[in-house]
């Protein structure tokens, strides 16, 4: 997939995204926040406006498209691509997880898998940048950064499989 970005002086930015069927999606982001979305059937034709969203709504729709609310392919995981092959992934710690009750240091997850825990969600609390002394409990949700492979290793260590 190729995304072309260009400046629109006085207006904002334009992103053109090639779609698999040869058409192009054009997103115009106005400086004041409004997004206009166009479809161009082929490179020679005119862009046809599909819809327009205010800033806030555009972000919400973007989050839905990203799969943060619902991820149809791997329903267990929520993952976000940070760029390159690096993911931001949420990993749930189950009741029978071998690492439940261990501190992050004891579990040695980073050394073993290469993925690091950047935050722990515990109920409604969030522990940002947890240290080696932070104890992981069953029911925690770990926010993990690493390559796809690191994250998969991490997941199987947490699940004990």
């Amino acid at each position: 997939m190729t995304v072309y970005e260009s400046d629109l002086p006085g207006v904002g930015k334009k992103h053109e995204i090639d779609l698999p069927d040869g058409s192009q999606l054009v997103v115009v982001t106005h400086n004041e926040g409004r997004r206009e979305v166009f479809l161009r059937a082929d490179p020679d034709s005119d862009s046809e406006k599909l819809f327009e969203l205010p800033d806030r709504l555009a972000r919400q729709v973007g989050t839905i498209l990203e799969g943060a609310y619902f991820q149809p392919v791997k329903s267990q995981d929520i993952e976000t691509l940070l760029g390159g092959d690096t993911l931001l992934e949420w990993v749930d710690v189950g009741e029978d997880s071998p690492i439940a009750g261990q501190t992050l240091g004891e579990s040695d997850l980073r050394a073993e898998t290469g993925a690091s825990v950047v935050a722990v969600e515990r109920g409604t609390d969030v522990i940002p940048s947890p240290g080696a002394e932070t104890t992981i409990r069953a029911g925690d949700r770990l926010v993990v950064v690493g390559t796809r492979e690191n994250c998969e290793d991490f997941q199987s260590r947490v699940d004990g499989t």
Partner: protein
Amino acid sequence: MAAGLLELGQVFAVLAIAGAAALRIGLSVIPLYVVSGMLAGPFVAGRFGVPYVSNGELLTVLAEVGIVLLLFFLGLEFSLDRLLAARSRITRAGVIDAAINLPLGIAIGLALGWSVVEALLLGGIVYISSSAIITKTLIDLGWIANDEADPILGTLVFEDLLIAVYLAVVTSLVLGGADAGVSGLGRSLAIAFGFLGALLLAVQYGTEFFSRVLDVSDTESFVLRILGVVVPIAGVALALGVSEAVAAFFVGMGFSTSGHRERIERQLTPVRDVFAAVFFFWIGVGTDPRLLPGIALPLAAAVLLTTPAKLLSGYLGGRVYDLSEHRSFRVGLGLVPRGEFSLVIAALAAGGSTTVMRETIPALAVGYVLVMSVVGTLLMQRADRVEGLLDRVRSDTGAST
């Protein structure tokens, strides 16, 4: 006190009505603001004995703030990096545009028997396309997502840069040159470039200062701080006989590197639009419609000669961007509207010493902007029909030869 407030109230009420009318008929607000100023001013409303808005100091100062903010935004949008990134295409398209339209306007002025400075003023008026009208129409028509948007907006950026230099030179010629002779002209040019040079240095090395000035979360303070920097600097420039518009342009460039560009655009756009509306109104107030028949001939010549010239230069600019014939033609159509900057030049000319500068050029510029803003917008809205017409003409001539 009461009279002034009443008069200002009349200005805003009339502008609101004109804006509503523009929205209703789908035209740009600029020609309607100008016409509403003409109707509410001393020459029409005044003559019929109804309360009218006089061309007084109050309105002039507010209009002046409008010019300053228009140019401030131009500087804000104008990023050197952006220009450099696409410089070869923007420069080529921009040079073609300038090389065709600017000399044409000067030639028309000279053919009318005007002096070189007067002809140079006309050159600028017919050269500079309207960023405000064109950008708005591009968005309205959805062309903004098409490939023709790039050469159109690129050419506008080039024009904006050139017009900053042009205004600096022409202001000195108009304000300093006429009665003081060559040495006086040299001195006023020296002052202009000295002041602007100092300002440019401040802009270049003042990024930290600009960032610190704007480092406040409160909206009101934010807006006031920007106005508190740009308006006084423009005022000093004008007091020195230097173009206040160019000074504002440079300050805008300084603020654009402060990292607050988007916030400035978001929060100051309404302020700019209000004062710009007053500026267009003020132009109308100063225009006596009785002068318009007298300039009918030069106006017709300017419209009939410069419209095809802009179509041609725009077409060639589109080809520079490797666009198809069809899209390149649209680039030409998209550059036809003239507006705010032609009127800024006219306002500058009105401060000159000859009758041509004080009366003919402002009236001509108003007439020209009224025609070109409407014609240009209509050409863009009916682009398909215009192209169809052109294709028919071409196939007819092709068949007959």
